[in-house]
């Protein structure tokens, strides 16, 4: 299993899902290959079960070089066309999958030559030529490219170097590759599959390319930076989709995106997330508390939530909003901007950032309403947890949310402060309706979104791909 900035080093929905899957399927031996930024925080947050082991680590943006095996005669000859080939195949609108694989496999075969290839004068010249070719492409769907400057080109050159370095890291012998995001996590798997013919399963929680475009669209970056980051994500996703033997989105909404992005519908099998729900429930406590659990991240649109809180507090005096969760790593500035907005809106009276919690179930149980204002989601575990505790949910209509909350929650459009606030105020002022929706959610989780069903789906799929018949 390859992960990207998640399991076992960081908390979050994808990490929880990995933990559930690995812990729940002991009939498989799991080898984890995490990809992460090269800092010192190497300690794993999740304790791995005996049938799982971390078998290496791909560190990006670090100073470290590939480990040298002194007894092995290495091929150090640089290939000056490497950066140019990578930029053509990854950034071109119709980039060549075969060209990409050829370049990535070359990196795996000559890990010590990658740095030399990128530091050569000829490599940089060829890269610039290839980038100009990409910018000169004409395709009706691609739109006109922006102008790039030398700094943006150099930044892309550096990013592509790290893609090459990620490809160069050896992968262990395995029967099946399970990639947990259609981005960087796919790189080592692409090479492994090309070299050994191993089958590859891709699970997407959100749609990688969609989230990359959303992040770029909302960032204050220049057009050039937006163009490069979103194009690169698209290139990586296209390669991951092309290589995957099976794609397992967590919701039908993601499957629709994947079909739209060109994935063969025959390859797609939706396996919904599941949760280990308690056997009984309690009704909401009636304390006028609205709770949200999740990372502080632009994708969660916390700023809309703050505006919702202000509007609801006008309609329902005494209401309190609690946001449980830390900022996503790298989004600390967004978190500070949210706190600043809370001050500007005068929301400090009714809205509080609570930080991390070790008891998300208790936090949700203590709420009258669970709120989520995301602009992008797959199938959020936080909603399943709220339903498992029989709490009514107001959540924006993104990703798999409308599908999950069918008949047991309020689903306003994303970013619509008035509609979201109306949903929350309605539930707070109508406890019977709130309790009724909560009970329906509880029943729905027990009927459809069980941990057992989720694990069974993966057990079957992994067994099929590995060519073994699994006992239920």
């Amino acid at each position: 299993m390859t992960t990207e900035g998640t399991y076992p080093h960081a908390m979050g929905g994808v990490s929880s899902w990995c933990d559930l899957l690995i812990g729940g399927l002991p009939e498989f031996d799991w080898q984890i290959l995490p990809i992460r930024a090269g800092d010192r925080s190497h300690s794993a947050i999740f304790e791995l079960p005996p049938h799982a082991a971390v078998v290496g680590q791909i560190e990006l943006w670090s100073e470290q070089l590939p480990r040298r095996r002194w007894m092995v005669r290495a091929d150090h000859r640089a290939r000056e066309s490497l950066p140019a080939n990578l930029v053509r195949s990854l950034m071109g609108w119709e980039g060549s999958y075969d060209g990409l694989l050829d370049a990535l496999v070359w990196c795996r075969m000559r890990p010590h030559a990658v740095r030399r290839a990128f530091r050569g004068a000829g490599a940089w010249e060829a890269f610039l030529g290839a980038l100009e070719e990409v910018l000169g492409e004409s395709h009706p769907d691609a739109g006109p490219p922006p102008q790039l400057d030398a700094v943006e080109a150099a930044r892309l050159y550096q990013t592509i170097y790290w893609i090459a370095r990620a490809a160069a890291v050896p992968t262990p012998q395995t029967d099946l590759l399970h990639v947990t995001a259609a981005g960087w996590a796919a790189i080592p798997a692409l090479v492994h599959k090309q070299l050994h013919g191993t089958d590859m399963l891709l699970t997407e929680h959100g749609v990688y390319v969609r989230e990359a475009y959303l992040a770029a669209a909302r960032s204050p970056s220049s057009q050039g930076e937006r163009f490069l980051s979103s194009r690169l994500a698209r290139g990586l996703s296209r390669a991951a989709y092309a290589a995957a033997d099976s794609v397992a989105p967590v919701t039908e909404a993601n499957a629709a995106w994947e079909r739209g992005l060109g994935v063969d519908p025959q390859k797609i099998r939706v396996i919904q997330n599941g949760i280990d729900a308690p056997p009984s429930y309690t009704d909401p406590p009636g304390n006028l508390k609205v709770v949200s659990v999740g990372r502080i991240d632009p994708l969660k649109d916390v700023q809309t939530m703050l505006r919702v809180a202000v509007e609801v507090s006008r309609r329902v005096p005494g209401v309190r909003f609690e946001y449980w969760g830390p900022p996503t790593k790298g989004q600390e500035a967004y978190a500070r901007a949210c706190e600043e907005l809370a001050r500007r809106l005068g929301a400090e009276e009714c809205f509080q950032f609570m930080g991390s919690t070790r008891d998300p179930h208790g936090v949700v149980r203590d709420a009258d309403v669970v709120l989520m204002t995301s602009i992008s989601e797959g199938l959020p575990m936080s909603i399943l947890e709220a339903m498992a505790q029989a709490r009514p949910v107001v959540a924006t209509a993104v990703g798999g949310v409308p599908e999950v909350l069918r008949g047991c929650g309020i689903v306003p459009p994303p970013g619509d402060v008035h509609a979201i606030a109306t949903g929350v105020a309605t539930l707070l002022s109508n406890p019977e309706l709130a309790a009724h929706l909560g009970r329906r959610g509880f029943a729905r989780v027990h009927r459809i979104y069980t941990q057992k069903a989720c694990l069974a789906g993966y057990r079957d799929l992994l067994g099929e791909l590995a060519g073994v018949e699994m006992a239920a």
Partner: protein
Amino acid sequence: MESPGHQYAAGVIEARLGRGAQDVLEAAVVLEAWGGVRAGRALSLGSRVVPPKPPRWTPGRLTTEEPGRRDGILSEAVALIMAILAVASWAGPLSRQVGTSSLQQAIVIALPLTLALQWAIRSRYLSRRSGLACLAHDRLALCALGLLAIEVPLMLLRPYGPLAGMFVAIWVGGTVLARRGWALPYGLLLVGAVIGLEAELPAYPLLEVLTATVLIGSVTAIRTGEEHSNEPAGRVGRALWAGAIGAALGGLLVGDPSLGWGVHGAFPALALLPSVLGSFWGGYHLWKFYDAVPRGLQGTSLTQANQRNHRGAAMGIFLGAILRLVGVTVVLSGAVLLIAEWTSGTNRLSLFVGFGCVALVTMIVNVLESLAYARWALFAAGASVATELTVSNVVLVHAPVPGAALIAGTLVGILVALPPLLMLLMRPGRVLATSLWIQ
């Protein structure tokens, strides 16, 4: 929700982004996230709302972070002056107490070792933003063991070994103290030792106390330095290369016997002062490199990104640093020469020229190393030492002027290191992409 039409879709995108969509995917993503349009429909609508014209160009935002810190620079400079003057003042009383030969041999061993350790520690730890935290994280005990591994063999080399060992510990410890912002107390400690030596206190116990104080201070500096950081330390391999370069440069300083370390009293150390201060200012200017090179390239089109630019930011900063080094060295050397009669005859011009050349080759080699051309840097430093040793031992056994071999060695080093560096710096785009951002 009703399926919106083409105009509605374009309106949603314009309202949300304040511009047209970049491509079909961005249009679809925006329509789904904020327009409530389902994925399939959003993708088909997206292709109809991609604008035909490219967006108006805006330059990229630049967020660069300089490695290490630049505050407390004045106190560091003052401390450096105090340290050099103090060490220069030690020479007389020390040679009287321990003997000229012992002092000379101690310096000849200690200088290369000190520079090797300083370059290695700087490469792996101190050049980083949270350098002391990196050092603390790498287990203080391990670092102490490393230092012991150097110190213990030195202690066995009697009679000059213990003295050399103490010099190494005092000078390397000083680097750590300066990084912590404790350069002034360090300088005052050295001045205190001068007063003690001049008062005829026994040299060894005095230096032992000083060594212990500096080492305890260094450990305290590391432990109480920066808060915990996730920033990783540099590569061990790179630190070893840096250490080798430092050792070669140290070898260059002591490889010419005509300099008379420990023989001519305070003179060589005093003659070193102008060039050290020159390098200090030049090196301070070079800190801008990481920030100024990308800043200078902002807005440069792709076609110009690989063109030669003699006046580019990289070349400008390098030449600025050289100018500062040479300027300060020349002016201060003149000043020291002017007061020669009060400093026991520090009037040998060739030594000032030699040390100035050492500072120059050190700076060039330093830039090469910081751009991760360590092999070339070591080759240049090694060529300098080899030339110096050849000249002093074979060609000019009786040097016409003191420091002649040193000058010859450093000139060879400059000739070896400078042309490739200039070729590189002439293309700032290439430097940024292939050297600064890929190490």
